[in-house]
């Protein structure tokens, strides 16, 4: 059997930092065949980098790719929420491909691969959304805390990230980030969630940190610590920089907090950009599930 031919094929929309990091990850891991990177500008540094690496580039956008006759199993969309709406219409109507959306468009179902993995299916899911970096980093430990508690009364997720890792779109509208992250935390916990994001400009840049705080009717701290630790190791299989820095701790009566830090793998993005790393890792993990890539 020729392994090279059996690889699922993918294309990436967007030649910014996230798109190129994802591309270099795909090239390094060799599980998928990267058919092309689609951009919007001929002079994009990201596209040039891809071209040098021997990847086909499509500087005139998705129409150029679709009219090329090339077919892929799936797309990753690392553009913007607004562009995704346009891209999705074309992908839905003109192809049979799935799309994994890394923008905060909230068009597709919002998934956290380590939690929702079993429910993801290529037959029913053609558009899956990666929520936010805060959603990807908090949901696993939130899920573990929820499983260890009798009754969850309140949930809070706060993240701090290096200023340099927050792109202009994120900075312009933190409200989108908060809305999307709150929706996912509420889905996992069953109660309304409060989400906070703080940008820290310190140099050297700080690693992303996410704290999950829950108020619970009852929680066994030992159980919670075990559950959180095992969940962290599970996530770390695809995000090696995902680390527990504060195990579940009772910070006041009935209120429990746990904190993880996320260091990036350092493909194209710097290591401090753990927030961008975890969303790319989640996208790739979701693609593996969709294409039943052995793990």
């Amino acid at each position, binding site marked *: 059997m020729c392994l090279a031919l059996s690889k699922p094929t993918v294309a990436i929309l967007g030649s910014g930092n996230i798109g190129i990091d994802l591309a270099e990850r795909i090239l390094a891991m060799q599980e998928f065949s990267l058919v092309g990177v689609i951009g919007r500008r001929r002079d994009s540094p990201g596209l040039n980098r891809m071209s040098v690496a021997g990847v086909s580039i499509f500087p005139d956008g998705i129409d150029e790719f679709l009219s090329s006759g090339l077919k892929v199993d799936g797309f990753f969309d690392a553009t913007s929420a607004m562009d995704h709406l346009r891209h999705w219409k074309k992908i839905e109507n003109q192809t049979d491909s799935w799309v994994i959306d890394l923008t905060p468009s909230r068009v597709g179902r919002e998934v956290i691969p380590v939690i929702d993995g079993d429910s993801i299916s290529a037959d029913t899911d053609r558009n899956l959304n990666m929520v936010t970096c805060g959603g990807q980093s908090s949901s696993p430990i939130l899920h573990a805390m929820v499983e260890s508690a009798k009754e969850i009364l309140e949930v809070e997720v706060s993240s701090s990230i290096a200023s340099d890792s927050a792109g202009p779109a994120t900075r312009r509208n*933190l409200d989108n980030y908060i809305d999307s992250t709150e929706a996912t935390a509420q889905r996992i916990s069953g109660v309304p969630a409060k989400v906070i994001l703080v940008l820290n400009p310190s140099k050297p840049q700080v690693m992303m940190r996410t*704290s999950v705080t829950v108020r619970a009717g009852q929680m066994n701290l030992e159980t919670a610590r075990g559950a959180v630790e095992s969940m962290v190791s599970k996530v770390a299989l695809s995000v090696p920089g995902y680390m527990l*820095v504060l195990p579940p701790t009772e910070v006041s009566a009935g209120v429990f*907090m746990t*904190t993880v830090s996320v260091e990036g793998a350092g493909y194209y993005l710097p290591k401090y950009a753990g927030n961008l790393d975890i969303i790319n890792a989640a996208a790739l993990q979701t693609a593996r599930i969709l294409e039943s890539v052995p793990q």
Partner: protein
Amino acid sequence: MIGLHDVTLRDGNHALRHQLSTEQVRRYCDLADQSKVDVVEVGHGNGIGASSYLVGKSFETDFDLLSQARESLKRAKLGIHVIPGFATFKRDVAMAIDCGVDVFRVAAHVTEADVCSAHLERLTGLGVFTTGVLMMSHMASTEVLTSEALKLRDHGAGGFVFMDSAGVFRPEDVAVRSRSLRDSLGPTYPIGFHAHNNLGYGLANSISAISNGADSIDASAAGLGAGAGNLNLELWGVWLQDQGHLDESESDIFISMAELIEDLFTPNLPRISSQSVRSGLAGAFSGYSPQVAMASQSHGVSTQAIWREIGARGLVAGQESAIWEIAQDLSNL
């Protein structure tokens, strides 16, 4: 005319661990309305929408506090502080608009002005008065502070305030910044300064700001505020009277406002303490005091070591959860 922005019922809420009640708002606003303060700012210490385990839960909702203040204030304007990342437009700012707030201060860490852009632009579009605020302004150079202030103005802010959130500045630091801001923002643009007393420079810094181009000052009755508190309103009144801006009876109302605060909040009154000096020297956010005390006690490490580590790790406001991690790390040493 020197503007006067009263932050007693907002920054003061830090000292009260955000337990301010509507009854206290009513009593204070009734008195403040007879005084010469231009704006009374109300809400959670970290601004509306910030009630949380991370920075402290409010005793009453922002809606209830603002509604009470709106009812009581006939003359003075009602203001809020809002930090994007804590509050969202849809959930929190829209509520404040409905409550009839007059002055919207949109705030960010000193280097992060652009996170205010969406809120400022939407508010400006609605025709309400906005002010851009940069917090922890000691963590950037004068040049960066000034260029970030220009960004806020470009996003529509009708005025600007720089905050010495950690109470680090000396009068000459404030002078240099005030002059640079005045030069860049133009002769008529409103520029305010917000002091903290951690190293005892609140009054001297405020005078320095006014003498070097700022035209508005934040003050708090009895200094009620985070850390060692803000510039004392009653002391500012004395200075304003000395300068001929107020007569004796006008200045006296500020003293009565401080008296009320002292009566209402005796156990919570901020003071310059060994802790505040340590936090000031470390350049750490004044609002961290309660969490530092709690984490110190629970992990058996000194507050001094925690303050120093907060400074060394360059924590910005809103990273209270990191204090627990620091205490844990120090206890494992």
